[in-house]
């Protein structure tokens, strides 16, 4: 097997691994149970897409895809931050309202 051939196979395989990774992460998104769990899984997507871009750029020999990765690396965390802040504030708010927060309230958000 040539190096190039190996590379193609490895890259394709990598792509599949990454996509499986996404699917697995999605399981956590779907399952939850808490908001934080879902957010962690969504946060995971950032690195997954960056990796996807990297692998795909190799496969296609098209470095411009790296531009997507760089943007995502820089600002992708913001969604996580916003959602985390939401979770925190939501909690504080309901606590301020002195509501009895039952287990699972966060799930039913």
């Amino acid at each position, binding site marked *: 097997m040539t190096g190039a051939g190996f590379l193609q196979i490895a890259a*394709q395989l990598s792509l599949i691994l990454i996509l499986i990774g996404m*699917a697995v992460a999605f399981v956590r*998104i779907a399952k939850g149970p808490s908001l934080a769990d879902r957010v962690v899984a*969504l946060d995971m997507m950032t690195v997954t897409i960056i990796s*996807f871009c990297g692998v795909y750029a190799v496969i296609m020999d098209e470095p411009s895809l790296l531009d997507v990765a760089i943007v995502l690396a820089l600002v992708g965390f913001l969604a996580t931050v*916003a959602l985390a802040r939401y979770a925190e504030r939501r909690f504080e708010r309901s606590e301020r309202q002195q509501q009895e927060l039952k287990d699972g309230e966060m799930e039913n958000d």
Partner: protein
Amino acid sequence: MSRSLAHETAHLTRSPTPTMAEHSDPNAPWKTLSGIGTSAITAALFLFFLQYVPTIAAGEPVRWVIPWIPSLDVNLSFWLDGLSLMFALLITGIGAMVMLYAAKYLAGHPQYDRFALYLFAFMLSMLGVVLADNLIALFVFWELTTFTSYLLIGFSHADPKSRRNALQALLLTATGGLALLAGFILMGVSQGTFEMSQINAAGSLVGQEFYTLILFLVLAGAFTKSAQVPFHFWLPNAMAAPTPVSAYLHSATMVKAGVYLLARTHPALSGSDLWIWILSIFGAVTAVFASFMALRQTDLKQTLAYTTLMALGTLVMFLAGSTGYAITAAMTFLLVHSLYKAGLFLTIGIIDHATGTRDANLLGGLKKAMPITAMAAAVAGLAMAGIPPFLGFIAKEVAYAGALEMHLWLFVVPMALIAFALMFAVAGIVAYKPFYGPQGDLPHEPHEGPWPMLLGPVVLGSCGLLFGLMPGLTAYYLIEPAVNAVMGAPDTGGRVKLWAGFNLPLLLSLITFALGFLIYLKHQALRERLARIEAKSPDLDASWDVFLDWFVRFSKGQTGLIQTGVLRQYMFATFAVFAVTVLITLITRGAGGVNLNLAGLGLMEWGISLLIAAGTVLVLLTSSRITALVGLGTVGIGVALIFIAYSAPDVAITQLLVELLVVVLLALALLKMPYLDKGNVQKHSFPNAVLAIAVGVLTTWVLLLVVDQPFDRRLTEFFEAASWTQAFGRNIVNVILVDFRTLDTFGEIAVVLIAALGAFVLLKGMRAAKEEKK
């Protein structure tokens, strides 16, 4: 007749024209510009038309044309022949006197100026109707008379009855008007010209393709305007208007517009069996019905209203014929009726003004206090009764002669006899009874009317007498030219004579007198009988209210079905329309079947697709907002992956950034927003699901068809070639955005800006406004 009309009558009789009583001041100055000015102009117009009498009598019609909308064959073309001249003279002559009368009658009324304006405008419109040659121009004037009379009938607008009756008159005549419009257009289109004189000259339309339709449409207009049974009920109700209006609109002119129309279109439309039967029957029934109703009334104004109806019926009945006698009868009767009816209306107005009532039972013995009024009434009443030597007598004679000549004489003659006899009786009630015998218990002490109000009745009454005394001149200058115009060909003439010898018509006249006198004597008893019959008979006027009521309820019901106020129902309908439309079109227009080409797709494609689908399902199924948001994020990521994989990094970056911002904004907003299903858990809905799936399937179907087509890459190739060499940019997408299609981008940033300003308005502005209020 109607319960509600009876109520109406009582109401009117008790406190005649309430606003009048409130506002008008008999001592107020009446020589205002509006009053004197309008009468003067109208009188001048009368003189203007008067000078054409010899010309027209000599058989030379005059035509004026002012181009209006040449590209639509609509011109302000006027046609002055015997028919239009007679009408024009009546309109301007009676108009001038009525306007003068009104100036005094309504002196001091706060809205008198408007009244004068409306009346004047009405006069001009009516003049337009009778002069216009172009059918569309005629229609324009026709509708203007409808409109101005609406304003006039509703003059006492504070009174709900007045408003109701004005609306009734408007809607009924407008209904006919619209039919008429269709008829005119059809006539114009089928004849190739909109000039009535040309259509008439070209000969009869009978037998042509659209004749029947045209006839029905024109008759609909004529019958509603001229209040033929069963469209009659608006006319007595229209008596809510001030008396000068009634005198003018509802006796002399507007209601005759329908008759005029039948006369004008006579050459083109008459002669068919349909024409003869319809006009005879409608006219006769109207005439007889109206005569009885006239007798039934106690309010003199109502009585007159019904006699007007009777006259209209009679005229229509005679226009059914095509013989010289029938037409001469119609024209003579038309002339005499206009004169005496206007006179009588004005007289009633004077009585009303002076005594405060119009109740036939109360009135009596006014001759002493109001001698001139009594004189004028007498002259008019005699004309109405058809006593020689008044023109009314001649009219009646000719009418009988005409009736005997008509196809349906067996039907027409008895009907005419009944009508004329009743008319005789009514003339006694209106013109004789109030002035003679014992004086009743009146609201005010009677006094003679002022001269501006007396002028009209006196002059009009005198005309009735004068014309009767000079039948030859009247016939030569007025009646025969009109008859010629209606016949569409020169008539032999010579039928209008005071003395035509001992003949059948004279015999019929004598029978009429006898019968009429008998009825007059028994009229009280008869009136009570009629009232009992009326109470049992169907009430068209009340049906009108029922109908309007039903219509409003129907509207509300219908609208409530559609405009439910519930967004999801609107949304359902919108999507359903989309689905049904697309589906039907797909199937019936042969767009083709689905060709699903999934070859050559790797795991990547399927993986991304599944990710999107999974995210979608999550959004769909979850009852948690944040889970839905995360699901949306997943979908967004999946879509971005497609963009990455299929060569669109710019789009992918934008998609990801926008997705990010959506999450940020929603995370901010959701803090203060309700849970998805709090309190009102919505069950999953089967119809919604079916519709949703249908829309989804159809979208896919259409897109599959589209991508199955060959693709024209012209634009793309140009952009690829020109991007660097002509637009000096290497990122073709960006070059398209900022150079090839700048305007799109400009509009787009405007959207972003406006959205931001709009959100600012919503979130900050309302808060600020609220705080300011506190």
